């Protein structure tokens, strides 16, 4: 234990203040958006809304819900998220496992690893990328958003390094007990890799949820835009909800572009916010503690 000297305590106080400030910086903007989405248009426009709604109402959410395109885009994003995450994770684990073996067991390992790393360093560029998707007839399908990025090398390296950090003895004993590589991977490695699996899954999900550029480029019809692309393609500040066909003057008074926009942003962020607590429990360290006696 560290003796709690004066300087130590000063550091702890400063650290606490600093970290609190940092987390407030992250949380407050979200709170502000949430408050704006529940406020009336006038209050939002006048900048009166801070962290608590002024003239509480849910009209903005009603308007957004009424707009069919939003749910179409939401559905597209959900489809992409589920399929994409599944495919990404399967490929990631199946690639990372063999690459985590050393060259004695897997002679061409280094060559394969370099092939993967190469794709991080170099890529064909915008137009070849588009042409490749077009020639494979994926344009305008959800696969255009999933398959080009199905192998995420960065995540593979992450998993690979985690696998390497696992005690060798675990693998050896499972092989001695007669398990093949598949059994070793799925019954021994994966259960003790939950923390890194959770991390990589989260990265993948957030990545799929947030990416908008490929949707804009590869989807021909706006009806098939995923949510992030949809939000990007409608206007950013002023005219959002006017574009959503706001005809009822009473609603127009309560719902402005700002409040409607805030409602959309929040509804978009919500699914990802919900995922965090569920993955939280996997972020536990020390799963391998005690598995090996030396």
């Amino acid at each position: 234990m560290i003796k709690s000297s004066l300087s130590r305590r000063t550091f702890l106080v400063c650290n606490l203040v600093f970290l609190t400030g940092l987390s407030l910086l992250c949380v407050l903007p979200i709170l502000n958006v949430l408050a704006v989405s529940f406020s009336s248009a006038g209050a939002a426009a006048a900048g009166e809304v801070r962290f608590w709604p002024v003239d509480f109402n849910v009209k903005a959410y009603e308007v957004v819900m009424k707009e069919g395109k939003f749910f179409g885009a939401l559905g597209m994003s959900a489809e992409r998220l589920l399929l994409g995450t599944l495919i990404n994770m399967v490929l990631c684990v199946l690639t990372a496992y063999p690459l985590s073996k050393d060259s004695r067991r897997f002679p061409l390992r280094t060559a394969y690893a370099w092939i993967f790393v190469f794709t991080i360093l170099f890529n064909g560029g915008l137009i070849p990328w588009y042409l490749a998707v077009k020639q494979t007839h994926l344009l305008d399908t959800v696969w255009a958003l999933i398959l080009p990025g199905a192998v995420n090398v960065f995540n593979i390296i992450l998993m690979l390094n985690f696998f390497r950090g696992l005690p060798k003895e675990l693998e050896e004993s499972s092989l001695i007990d007669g398990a093949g590589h598949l059994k070793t991977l799925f019954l021994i490695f994966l259960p003790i890799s939950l923390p890194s699996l959770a991390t990589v899954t989260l990265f993948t999900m957030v990545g799929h949820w947030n990416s908008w550029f490929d949707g804009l480029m590869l989807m021909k019809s706006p009806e098939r835009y995923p949510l992030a692309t949809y939000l990007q393609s409608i206007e950013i500040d002023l005219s959002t909800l006017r574009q959503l066909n706001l005809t009822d003057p009473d609603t127009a008074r309560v719902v402005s572009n700002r409040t409607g926009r805030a409602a959309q942003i929040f509804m978009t962020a919500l699914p990802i916010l919900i995922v965090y607590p569920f993955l939280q429990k996997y972020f536990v360290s020390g799963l391998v503690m005690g598995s090996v006696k030396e």
Partner: protein
Amino acid sequence: MNKRKSALVGLSVLSSLSLALAACGGENNSDNGPEKPSTAAAASNAAGADAAGKYDPPITVHSIRPVDSTVTYDSGEDISNNRWSEYFKDALGIDMVYDWTTAKNDDYVNKLNVIIASGDKPADIYQVNASQLQQLADAGVLADLTEAFDKYASPLTKKLMNGDGGKGMSSATFGGKLLALPQGSATITNNDVLWIRTDWLKNVGLSEPKSIDDLVKIADAFVNQDPDKNGKKDTLGLGITQGPSPSNGGVADLGGWFAGFKAYPDRWVKDAAGQAVFGSIQPEVKQALAKLQEMYKSGLIDKEWAVKDSDKFGEDVLTNKVGIWYGANWNSMYPIDISKNKDLLNVKPFSIVAVDGKQPVMQAVDPSVNTYFVVSKDFKHPEAVVKLMTAFQEKLWGESSEFEKYGTNANQSVSYFKYPLVQSWPATKDIPDNLDAIRAALSSNDASKLNSEQKGIYTSIKAFNDGDIVTGYSTARQYDAFEVIKKDDLNNQLFSLFYGAPTPTMVEKKQALDKLEQEVFTKIIMGAEPVDEFDKFVSDWKKLGGDQITQEVNDWVASHK
């Protein structure tokens, strides 16, 4: 792959094109909205062409476009359903459908680029930039609009589209075929004026400059004679911003200064032999740089100018540090911010000056068009784009114009003119049209003849004259600047000879050459290199691709005579 596809498309379309032209003769003006068709028809009947001819049954035009955050609507309207789209449906029988839109122009350009590269057809009618136009023209996938324009453009549209002396239309013409309609705008408004603090002038006992020597004297007095009378030597001379920007139309640029030496950097000018040459490498530039170096050495230019962008420069203006600079007409709105410093009321625009003391001084402008509207070759109604353009211009500036309905609303808060995709603006809108109309209204105190845009300007200037400085200053001084530009430049403009899409060597090398130019100019002004360094720059420029660019530009100029 690109080529093969376009060839196929081309073959299949040739026949349908002629059919389409014959089939879409316009008539049938009945059962439209009230009063609109009659006036529009009258205007076009006078023309003897059926510009307002309506498609019956109506046609659908697929289009794509960027719709940025500055596009705002009255309640109930959006980009696909608004007063303009209604009008196009009622009067022309054209139903515009946007297949996709983007919120940022960059996204639009990117997406269009990949579609063009893949050989797909982007839309029936769409907008492109100069490079994309060149690409599409080379690929041969654009409809020839020559005949459609002749036949369907109203006299007004023909006049307005050629209001820049035909330069825009010429840049859209490839091998004698008009392949696009240029989005025109004014070029004269790019000209520089000299912005000077008149209260400082009075304090140092000088009057407005008539020559470069006068200007140097003023800069000297502004530095050394405490023009703001605060007892401190805290003021600067001639304002320049980093870069430096050697052409006009910016904030504290050097375009006006160079023009005073008959030097036109970054523009293509005629040499004695009639060839197009690059303005930046002409000997006049060297003289202008030498004079700047002399001023810098005697402290008449801010020592830190090379690290100040227009925002930083703006701070110097707002904190009463600088009182003389070259800039565009809108400098009264930015960097000047009258709400932050009321003393800036005394900043006024003046004519730029020459080293030989002769006025007016000729400035060179770049007549390049940034946006073009093109029609896919396989679209059956290529003349629709001409009709859309004609309708746009008729409703804003024609005899049947309804500016308040189709231009901007009365308090200028919503700009309806942004809704139509196909549009082009008269080169003369600000100078002299708006300027003359407003000056006349101000002297007669009668605003009834003004359109809503002009009325807004009229109200601002009137407010300024009545003492409401914060509301009126920026517009009032902008129109003072227009007045100066009109007096100096209206009959006296020099146009850059080249205004086409970047040539192949430009695409490859221009960026590096521009950087070289900026470095050398900055070093010479700051005295880090002797003025003779300019001669080395000229030979470097030529060697590093400049000669090739010059050749390409001359070829272009020859083909666009």
